[in-house]
């Protein structure tokens, strides 16, 4: 008998399938794996290192509540260095070595886009991420990825509307030369035009180690009253604002989610003075000190006090950690709904249940019950930094964008 190479391949693949996979699928697994890539090194290391303890807290609390359908979860954290290809390698490695992986948490816009076309068939996993990139909220092409809040475009919309309401006439965009930075700019340009705001400057900078004096000079020459900063985490944006203030520029600065962290603002204030006073931006969630109406924040706070004593997380959860927590809570909620119906935890089913989350009480992350629409939650409000108290205080109501 002649066995062609192809049919031999097919047969042997089938044989492997028969011998290997069903054993895993039939039996209730011992545990489910929630794996993640975080930037523990590289330009956004500060963020990654603060988020990774939150993952451990998430694991402990989910298991306290009975895991997913009675099966405990285990989190796996790998370092991506904020390099999309490394994160992709991490994901592929996790796929190959962790058969019970039900949820993945990615760490950059680049990675999420890189991995999106790979999420097919048995390579698919429900996937949350640190990114609010607009393209990721696209259930038609990309049902497995979701945003735990408004996209960057939505956030810029909110800011532009806010500028318009305050009587502004022009605006500048300064953004880092990354996908993350560029994401909402084109949309922002159109939106500004619609609102009758003149875009006087669109300036790209390096994500790290930007040439501050040159950028500040250009901002000064443009005569912008308002300036939206996008695509920065720990660096560049404080220096830009500091440079502008020393220059004597009256420009009002705004940030999006990643540029709104209290820890960074506090550190900059301690080091270089209270020049961030009055800096505003969009935040989809409550800050962790705003726990009165957020029972889940109180639970986290109790856990943090005992588990993270002596670290910056003892009395405060950074916004980045909150984002990861809500993102994975939403994923686990979807998985629990699947498990509750007694079905197998496939990525398809989980994505369907996730898309069906409506009027869900997140326990206080958001201002009220929220719904997944187009795989994102378009809710947020504007906060302003008070250097004296070191707190971001809300300066608008919660509102939802379409």
């Amino acid at each position, binding site marked *: 008998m002649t066995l062609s190479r192809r049919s031999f391949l097919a047969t*042997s693949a089938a044989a492997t399938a028969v011998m290997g996979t069903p054993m895993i699928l039939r039996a209730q697994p011992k545990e489910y794996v929630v794996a993640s890539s975080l930037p523990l*090194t590289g330009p956004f290391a500060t963020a990654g290192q603060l988020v*990774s303890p939150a993952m451990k807290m998430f694991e402990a609390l989910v298991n306290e509540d009975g895991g997913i359908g009675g099966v405990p979860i285990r989190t796996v954290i790998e370092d991506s260095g904020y390099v*999309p290809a490394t994160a992709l390698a991490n994901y592929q*490695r996790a796929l190959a070595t962790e058969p019970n992986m039900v949820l993945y948490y990615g760490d950059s816009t*680049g990675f999420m886009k890189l*991995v999106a*076309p790979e999420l097919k068939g048995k390579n698919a996993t429900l996937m949350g991420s640190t990114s609010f990139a607009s393209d990721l909220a696209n259930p038609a092409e990309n049902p497995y990825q979701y945003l735990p809040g408004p996209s960057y475009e939505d956030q810029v919309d909110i800011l532009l509307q806010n500028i318009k309401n305050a009587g502004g006439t022009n605006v500048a965009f300064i953004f880092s*030369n*990354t996908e993350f930075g560029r994401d909402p700019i084109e949309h922002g340009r159109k939106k500004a035009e619609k609102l009758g705001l003149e875009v006087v400057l669109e300036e790209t900078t390096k994500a790290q180690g930007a040439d501050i004096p040159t950028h500040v000079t250009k901002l000064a020459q443009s005569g912008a009253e308002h300036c939206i900063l996008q695509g920065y985490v720990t660096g560049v944006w404080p220096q830009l604002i500091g440079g502008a203030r020393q220059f004597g520029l009256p420009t009002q600065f705004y940030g999006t989610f990643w540029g709104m962290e209290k820890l960074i603002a506090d550190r900059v204030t301690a080091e270089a003075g209270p020049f961030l006073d009055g800096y505003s931006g969009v935040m989809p969630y409550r800050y962790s000190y705003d726990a009165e109406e957020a029972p889940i924040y109180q639970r986290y706070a109790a856990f943090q006090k005992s588990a993270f004593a002596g670290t910056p997380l003892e009395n405060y959860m950074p916004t980045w950690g909150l984002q990861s927590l809500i993102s994975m809570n939403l994923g686990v909620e979807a998985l629990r709904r699947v498990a509750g119906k007694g079905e197998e935890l496939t990525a398809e089913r989980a994505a369907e249940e996730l898309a069906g989350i409506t009027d869900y009480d997140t326990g206080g992350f958001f201002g009220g019950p929220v719904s997944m629409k187009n795989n994102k939650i378009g809710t947020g409000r504007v906060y302003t930094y008070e250097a004296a108290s070191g707190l971001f205080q809300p300066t608008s109501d919660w509102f939802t964008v379409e």
Partner: protein
Amino acid sequence: MINANLKSSYAADERVLDNRYKQGFVYGSILLLALFTLFGSDYAILIGSQMGILLIAVVGINVLTGYTGLVSLGHGAFVAIGAYAVTIFNNVATGIIPAGIMPFLSLPFAVFLAAAVGVLVGLPSLRVKGLYLAVATLAANFIVIFLIEEELFAPWTGGMVGLTTNAPNFFGWVLDTKREMFGLIAVLGVLALLAAQNLMRTRVGRAFIAIRDRDYSAEILGISLLRYKLTSFAISAAYCGLAGALFAYFYARILPEQFELALSLQLVAALIVGGLGRTMGPVFGVIVIVLVPELIKITFGAVTGDAAGMAQLRAPLQEIAFGALLVLFLLKEPLGINQIVDRILRAANRWPFARG
């Protein structure tokens, strides 16, 4: 090796695999690769594919740096060109060319385009050498990546957000699993190695070696520096273009930042660790360069468990290990692992008599 080298005809002397050890080794390796394709675990296939893609590119560098003696720190750019060319060709030609024969056109197109750009980048090599050439190629790498990222070309290249690639389709057989892709990579990898081995017994290969040993002497011997230096650049860029095309096939999406300086340096480092100017050098080098970080990862995971605080130390350690490997080999064994392997084989061959 001394024995098994008796040649009774010129034809025997001219063969690509000129002794029985080599033949046995090659056939044995092919058999092992075939078995591995069928039965290797998913994880091993993943690592194997990464190695295969890198290997083809390193073989290319070897032609240029190992045989011709021209330094390049910019070959990541050719990998990028291969990857983008094969994808863009596919996107543009979909509908015009039937999907089933697309790879037969898009692969040669990618390889050819990379070679053409290789000639262009190679032009300065006629005027500058050594260090200046290294920096010129490095500059070329930055510029190529910049052009790919540039918004002007974004409709084709996708700009910074990258490009979704497609799986190759050979007469209707779509290689859409990693295992099938590994099969393709392995076949092309072996062919690439044999082709490189073959190249070195031809007139062109000997001209390369003459140029490496002393370019002016070679010119005096009647070897056209212009022609052979550019040929060398073209061949090595073509190899890298092939590697890039496979890269695009293997991954579902490509980003410009994957082809930056880091890749160029990794390619050269793999070659140095493996052994410059030897056919098997790239093989050893790639195995070490890919496996060492993986081993560090595995042992690190085993030693520290899941401690989140420790995970952040791993990437810097991998980076240090990479640099240390490179420096150690340059200082202690400039001829690479190939030399060590040779020494062991020679000792084994002569045992129990004189060693060395």
